[in-house]
């Protein structure tokens, strides 16, 4: 329609409340007849309304008494801190476990070092999150009751070595193992 370009130049002025009354009437008459300009105006009006709604939400956020108004937010913050502590703790424990496992692996595969392997029956007494392994090919890596256990893996290229701190062997001296030559830590 003729005049659309000129009208569209005035739409934002209308939204800003800067149009003179006479100009407003001219634009309104055009919008009644022109669906394209009306659609454009309504979209811009929706954007303006949305921005005003966002501004009102920001006012509530910025209000000084908001903490008192929304006590639940304090608990959300406590929850976030607790979650952060939990994550950091988990990562720390994981890193410690990984270092132990690496150490066990290096001890097991140390060149020239003793490599005792055999089948042993053991009773796992650790926390329940660690998979129970009653029978496995094990490597004794240090004194006492710490063992690196090679877990069965379906993929021959994957080697799973799990370090057990709390394995209590039910067989004192398994066949093929020289317990007296355990590598020391």
């Amino acid at each position: 329609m003729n005049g659309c370009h000129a009208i569209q130049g005035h739409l934002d002025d209308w939204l800003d409340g800067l149009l003179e009354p006479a100009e407003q009437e001219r634009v309104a008459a055009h919008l009644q007849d022109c669906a394209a300009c009306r659609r454009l105006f309504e979209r811009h009006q929706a954007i303006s309304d949305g921005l005003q709604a966002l501004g009102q939400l920001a006012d509530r956020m910025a209000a000084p008494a908001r903490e008192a108004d929304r006590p639940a937010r304090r608990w959300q913050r406590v929850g976030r801190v607790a979650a952060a502590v939990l994550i950091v703790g988990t990562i720390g424990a994981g890193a410690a476990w990984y270092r132990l496992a690496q150490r066990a692996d290096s001890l097991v595969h140390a060149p020239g070092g003793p490599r005792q392997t055999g089948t042993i029956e053991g009773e796992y007494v650790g926390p329940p999150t660690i998979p129970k392994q009653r029978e496995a090919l094990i490597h004794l890596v240090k004194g006492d009751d710490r063992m690196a256990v090679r877990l069965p893996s379906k993929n021959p290229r994957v080697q799973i070595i799990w370090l057990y701190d709390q394995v209590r062997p039910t067989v004192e001296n398994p066949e093929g193992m020289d317990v007296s030559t355990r590598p020391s830590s």
Partner: protein
Amino acid sequence: MTYALKPTSDAKPGPVLRSDVPEKAALEDLHRRLVRLAVRMIWDRDEAEDTVQEAFRLALTKGMNPREVHFGAWMFRTVSNLCLNFRRRTKPESLADWIDPLDDATPEMAAQHVEQLVRLREAMDQLPRQQRLALTLRTMEHMSYPDVASVMQLSASAVRAHVHLGRRRLAELIGGPDGDVGR
């Protein structure tokens, strides 16, 4: 079809100190308005407080005087720039926490309302800096064009162009033939 006129606002960036207002009250009022602006730009109350604190520290460092006519505009400009340069370390605050349940007839409508506003907030973040700032100061902070111009150090007509382009870009980013983002 009805078209509501948007009220113009008398929110002004300065001067901050006037003879009829105690200095402490004037500075507290400025602080409150700056925090409100920062919240509108970075959507995190704590970060907004820190940003405004940093702006006041910069003002002290540079020897700015609250009695100067341009102090208010300078503070708004500084907070705006700090907010535009803000690197988000946490997710912005959830808008759902701040929606007034009485605004919406049903929970579904409230959820839809929140979703539209979140999309609009994300679209704002994608705007060029000048358009984002001009739109924030004009449509959310309700500053007049001359006042926005004094904060942005541009002419009023340039600010109007940024507001216009920003609205158009937002409509494109929100997408859809209806552009239904508010009420």
